[in-house]
């Protein structure tokens, strides 16, 4: 429930920024969107189980599903890669990061 709400807020904010003008804001928007997607992955495990999936250190009966965490890790890094590239695009070329058609 809370997780769903949290994700909803992230996505809403992300989409709003993505629909704005200028590469930087769009990039920020995507950062938020990827947060949302990553949390969705975590949530796809069972949010009721919130112990760390560390053998010996925590009670595996309540340990969280490690698989979606691995997914999320992978997704975070991929999102990071694209983010820095988009920032580079925002700073590349002439003028500024405007994304409107030049007429």
């Amino acid at each position, binding site marked *: 429930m*809370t997780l*769903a709400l*949290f994700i*909803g*807020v*992230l*996505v*809403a*904010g992300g*989409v*709003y920024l993505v*629909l704005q*003008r*200028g590469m*930087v804001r769009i990039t*920020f928007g995507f950062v*938020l969107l990827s*947060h949302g997607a*990553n*949390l*969705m992955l*975590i*949530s*796809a*495990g*069972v*949010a*009721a189980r*919130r*112990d*760390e*999936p*560390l*053998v010996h*250190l925590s009670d*595996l009966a309540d*340990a969280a*599903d*490690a*698989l979606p*965490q*691995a997914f*999320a890790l*992978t997704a*975070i*890094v*991929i999102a*990071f*890669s*694209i983010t*820095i*590239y988009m*920032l*580079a695009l925002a*700073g*590349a*070329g*002439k003028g500024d990061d405007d*994304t*409107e058609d030049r007429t």
Partner: protein
Amino acid sequence: MVLPLVLSLLALVALAAPMLDRFLGRAAGWPLAVVFLLLGAIIAVDAPRIVTHGEDIEFSAPWMPTFDVSFNLLLDGTGLLFVVLVLGVGALIMGYSAQYFSRGKHADYYFLMSLFAAAMFGLVIADDVVLLFVFWELTTICSFFLIGRTGLTANKPAVRTLLLTAAGGLALLAAVIVMIVHIGTAQLSVILADPAWQEDPAFATTVGVLIIIAAFTKSAQFPFHYWLPDAMAASTPVSAYLHAAAMVKAGIYLLMRFSPALADNVTWNVALIGFGLLTAIIGALFALQRHDLKELLAYSTVSQLGFLVAVIGIGTPAALAAAGVHTLAHALFKATLFMLVGVIDREVGSRDIRRLTGLRRVMPITAALAALSALSMAGVPPLLGFISKEKLFAGFLEAPGPEFAGPLVGAVAVVGAVLTFAYSFRIVYGAFGGPTTQTKLREPSLVLLLPAAVSSIAGLVLGFYAGWLDLLIDRIVLDTRGIPGEVHLSLWHGLAPEVYMSAITIAVGVVLFVKREAIDRLLDRPLFPVTGVGVFERCFDGTIALGARVGDLTRTNAPTRHLALPVALIAVLTGAVLVGGIGVPPFPEPVTEPVDWLLIGLLVVGIVGMVIAKSRLAALALLGVVGFVVALFFFLLGAPDVGLTQLLVEVLTVVVAVLILRRLPTLFHPTSRARKGFAAVVALIAGSAAALGTYALTGRREISPAGEYFLREAEEDTGGTNVVNTILVDYRALDTLGELTVLGIAGLIIIAVLDSSGLLPGDRGSRVATFSGTAIGSATGNTVLARTVGRWLAPLLILLSLYLLLRGHDEPGGGFISALVGGAGFALAYLSAPSAAAAPIRWPYVGLIASGIGLATLTGVLGFADGSFLRPLHADVPLFGDVTYHFTTALVFDVGVYLAVIGVIIAALNRLGIEEYEVTDRGSMDNRQPVPPDGQAESPGGQDTADPAETTSVAGGEQR
């Protein structure tokens, strides 16, 4: 065996034609003519079997058995008639071309003409509907090139012709497919024999209409008639062969071929008779209007084809017999006339009957031959045209339907015939009659006239000995109506009605000829408000305009207009699911904890802030805040590795972002209220969709079998106790390999793109300095703190990262986290450097990236030793005494990850951090140095940029 032999020989001839042309030039026509005749002879050997014993020559070979399409060939009487046209007239035209063209190379011409002959031959012997269609289209394509090759003026007509005939072809394709689907075979003879034609009128009519469209486009019937005159842009031999004798007859062939199946279909009868006669009349009228002999002939062809279509529509044995005879007769006289018009054009330099006059005195033979053919066309005895015309009349009188149908159709036919008579004389008189003005003209070489002579004299001979054709025509009736015909062709066979009709025709025709001035005045006005070509062009342009409008819908590079659509699709899906309803199971255990609400609160603050922020840096700061909140949530959800990674990624994102922001205006671009509103609506939709999806689809089941397995078996399987890390480097190392490739490539493409497009000038340092107080501001003074801390912290972080790398398998850490920590260290070292110029860490980061990817992959390859890619190998390395270190290649893999990540981070810092950037397009890392000297960089406020003029980068496009 004879059919495929001849067919393949024709194809070979086509391929050989360019060779012949190379050696013989235009004279290549002669050998080609001979070959055509020889091939005709080969067929002739079997002809008696066909016409006398009613046999068919067949051949069958598989082509696409999967789709039940075969290479079936079948030659019957009908086919034979058209083969005679293809090879006979073909030979004449080839011989004619050898003299007609200017000396020199005509390779493409001879190639295309031979290819056309092959295609046309295949068309009339194909016994598979798909094969039939293939050859049908091939003739269209040949026609396209033969018209287009004539020159600039012919380009548009060629395109018009192709599009129109191709459209007809598609109708044929549709018919073919409907037949295949409905009857279940592609073999033409089987299809035609199928009872479905009688039992299922809907099917019969559908196919019938499609066939009619195809035939009408090919044979230039109203309303498609206009392409034929348009196609006269082609050279005369092409017109004579394709657009008089052979190709335009393909439609006639198709109609005759399908007569057995459709001759009793009312739609078929009405459409063919109606449009056929209409075309016959219109064509004749147009012919009477025209002064250009070639155009006149074209319209006369349209008219004659109209007669043929109409008589096929009658569908009685007599009618189809007439169709057979007239097809032959028309081919003979029309080919002759075209050839002779070509001769006149060549000798006199004009085809306009207003400028030609009295040529009979200077070129009597030409005149005689032309007259002979024209009389045949006019239906004057004792020529073959007379006999065929009478047969037509006889056929028309048998028109199906009510009593008056026969007489009515007959009457209309007579009108058409009268007009035909009139324009036939118009041709002869126009060119050869009247006073002779150009007296110095002379008869062309007899060699040039020979082919025309053959065909026109054939028309005369066959007039007297028409009986020779009886057997063939009988066979055609058998093929097209299923009952053997009893045709007796002769000039005189009693006072039948058609005799009177001929008499009327000739009588009235003569009157019209005498009154020709009056007729000309009468017809000297447009008969229709629109021209076919005009209508076509309007549709053509209209389509293009429509297309442009369709393109405009998406004609923008602004992401917004594109990005809203996917959200809309997701909204649709969500809506559908909500409406349809999917019984979601209940939550087995509560998934919410009070503390979550606190995080949501923080998040909302951050998001709202970002949404309303006008300053880039403010938004960035808030982005950082949100990132940390998210990381916190990860920790709360028992995902320490994810949380750690999230934190570090956030730091690095902010650093990189700062490096870019200093090159951009302080404030975001202003956006209109309307746009904000639109974005807000879309955003809310997206947000609710995401929330609903998460709420409905996650957390409602027990832990998955896989997740359960990992918790249970991870240590046993891998020796690691940090389950997440074991998944990353052992179970799903392939994902990780892909992920680190992605990261590495990101580094490379940043370099590549900056190399080709350069970077904005970094002249906004001061404003940034107020925010961060680092080397970005690049003032020595305000970085003291950062430097003192950084100098100690950076190395520590890098050490820590190595530690994290080693322990990662067991506790939070591992390749990415450790590398990101190390990266943070470098970032700190970078930021705390006294000047941006001193900052860049001169490491071969490209090499790091490559070696990282390489090392990880190679480690994976080692796994093949144990049977599979990325299979981790284990070994206990004795350290000292009995202490051993459990070594696994998974660690080496992680090292690869580490290298790549560090490489990318340094690459980003270096490439985005330096002040100036000139484009090289040679992405090498060593030839790139910060432009400004250190002294300048020391200047307070860091206004350490050269004049923007120098700094503007060259876009690759300009270099091309």
